[in-house]
């Protein structure tokens, strides 16, 4: 079996079996957060990596999901799962709005415009403190499950569903069209693709997924505050996305699973815990210098080779392609002579 698939399976097993190996509540808390943020990062990659809409304000969808599900439960008495679903719908509506407003924007203009939206929402929330709780946010939610292990499994299973769902989505014909839009929107339009429709759909789906993660976060933390809309969170997901590898889905997920527990672990040292952000930034910088396309593409290049004829992935130590049999290494030439597309 392909090395990358083995790794993926091992990871799924690890995620599912973690509470059995380490039932420590602190570990499970960090792990649950990791799962929530990983799904969040995956939703960003769909939008930014695949569709090329590099969103610098993705926290808007996270916060929208968090706040709406919290408010629906606390103010209108919605049952928890209904609130989560409705939160996702509201978040999706926000996604459609942002997508619509940004239809004509390209590249950096789009990125910088999207930066504004969460901040505008914060301003609006602060203007109605009785409704939104102002700078404190809303609190008093009861978590979805009554035990820490239960809550962890909710986060983990939701994450697996969202990540694999997003990945399947990206890997389909729909994803191919997104790629086309990203690479050359004009050409895509010229080929008859209704780019407006596709862009709006991907904004809606990405926002819905992010909204679900926001709602799960709110329930886990028992509340939602303006910290769910912070620019720092938007930047964080961009860092995870690029660090992990754009347009892969598994890249950003890997990045979160590597970086989030790492920074938490760094923060637990009383000696230099306050340096955690500094160390994090240095690590990101160093990794980028050596792996500019991201962590997972680099790792994947080391463990797998692409067949020059049929373009299928193979284990790096195979002699012949597993599909078409062609020799993976031309006699005498170094494999890096083949450009990876």
């Amino acid at each position, binding site marked *: 079996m392909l090395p990358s698939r083995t790794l993926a399976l091992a990871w799924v097993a690890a995620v599912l079996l973690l509470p059995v190996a380490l039932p*420590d*509540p*602190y570990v499970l*808390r*960090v792990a649950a*957060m990791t799962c929530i943020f990983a799904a969040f990062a995956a939703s960003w990659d769909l939008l930014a990596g695949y569709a090329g809409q590099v969103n610098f304000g993705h926290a808007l969808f996270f916060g929208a999901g968090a706040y709406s599900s919290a408010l629906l439960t606390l103010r209108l008495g919605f049952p928890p799962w209904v609130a989560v679903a409705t939160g996702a719908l509201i978040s999706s509506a926000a996604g459609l709005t942002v997508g619509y407003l940004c239809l004509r924007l390209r590249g950096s203009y789009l990125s910088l415009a999207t930066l504004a939206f969460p901040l505008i929402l914060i301003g609006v929330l*602060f203007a109605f*403190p009785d409704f939104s*709780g*102002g*700078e*404190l*946010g809303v*609190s*008093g939610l009861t978590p979805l499950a009554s035990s820490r292990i239960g809550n962890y499994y909710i986060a983990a299973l939701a994450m697996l569903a969202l990540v694999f769902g997003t990945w399947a989505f990206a890997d389909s014909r729909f994803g191919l069209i997104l790629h086309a839009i990203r690479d050359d929107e004009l050409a895509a339009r010229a080929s008859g693709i209704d780019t407006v429709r596709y862009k709006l759909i991907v904004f809606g789906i990405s926002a819905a997924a992010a909204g679900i993660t926001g709602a799960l*976060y709110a329930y886990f*933390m*028992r*509340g939602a*505050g*303006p*910290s769910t809309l912070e620019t*720092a969170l938007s930047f964080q997901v961009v860092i995870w996305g690029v660090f992990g590898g754009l347009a892969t889905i598994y890249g950003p997920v890997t990045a979160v699973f590597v970086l989030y527990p790492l920074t*938490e672990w760094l*923060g*637990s040292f*009383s000696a230099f*815990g*306050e340096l*955690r*952000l500094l160390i994090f930034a240095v690590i990101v910088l160093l990794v980028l210098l050596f792996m500019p396309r991201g962590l997972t593409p680099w790792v994947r290049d080391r463990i797998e080779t692409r067949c020059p004829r049929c373009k299928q992935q193979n284990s790096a130590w195979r002699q012949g392609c597993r599909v078409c049999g062609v020799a993976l290494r031309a006699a005498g030439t170094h494999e890096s002579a083949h450009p990876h597309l």
Partner: protein
Amino acid sequence: MPRPLILAAAAILSVAPAGIAQEKVKIAVIGPMAFAQGENAWAGAEMARDDINKAGGISVGGKKRMIELVRIDSNEIQSVPDATNAMERAITREKADFVIGGFRSEAVLAMQEVAMDNKKLFLGCGAADAKLGANVEKDYNRYKYWFRIAPLNSPGLGRTLFAVLGAIAGQIRADLKKETPKVAILAEKVIWTEAIVKAAQANLPKMKMEVVGTWQPSPTATDVTAELAAIDRAGADMVFTVLSGPVGIVVGRQMGERKTRAVAFGINVEAQKEGFWQATAGKGNYVATLDTYAEVEMTPKMIPFVKAFKARFGKLPTYNAGTYDAVDLIKVAVEKAGTLDADKLVPILEQEKYVGTGAYLEFDKTHDPVWGIGKDTGIAVQWQNGKKVPFWPPDVKGMGKFGLPGES
């Protein structure tokens, strides 16, 4: 080494540590350790630990135990989930018996949930928000492990403010011969100021003061010339400030630069810090604010504590150093109960009348400190030529005099 000797050595070594290593009382100090608030919290707790351990430690059911402090950086100013992770770590990993500290209200609300999940006593020494106490009343069985040591909750702060405002108004009436001083309200547009602003708008006229307007900048505003220009034009004698962010520095500095006739008093958290004078580049003269610690005898313990703190750390304590009282209060309660069991300590704390370094502490049904002149009010200080001069309550030993700009 011959075999029997090894066995004997092993036996001795296995027994000896059990004798030397006593059980400790673990208290976690949680806060933003890279910032002044966390530093002060840690400093106050350190002083308490050293004082208590030097005197023999805490007597738990007859056996003496030393206090061990655990320093937990919540990073709450930058990240709320980091703070909850830190709280969880403090309780489940570090196995702290008690947690004290906290600062940013949004984070403390979330941290409170974690502490209550684990039924650990969490003594707050930084967040003023009323919701933390309201939770105790709403769901007593869950939230009873929370007590607020400092500061007073927002309504309590409001009462002190009006007491001081009355005193200052009296001085303005006497010195400036104005029957109805004009007051401009300058409050941050955030939740915790709402109640105070509404109360001010309602009460000031009853106290024979005229409210000439309410201005609400953002806590991080870097420029208040607009507000100050309008305040000047309205002819205000006093600016009632309700500020906790860096805008407090900007207000102080720009009022000084403009040589504003009005005097600023209220809550100005940045003005409580020693660095305020430098931060306003020496222009923050006459800025007055509520504060907690000064070399005044609000309780018999305050002056020795402030002096010792200054000697050890080179600066005056802020209200976050109320962790000193938190640690000492834990000792008092544990010794009375004879156990570390939180459920047994809660009723004791509820009944306790404690003489602290910051105030006389008594808790009401929301586990907030009870307000009262002579009990717990806080003090008021004014910056005069680079020094914080305490001036209220006037009849306490060590108090100075309040100065109006324009008077020398």
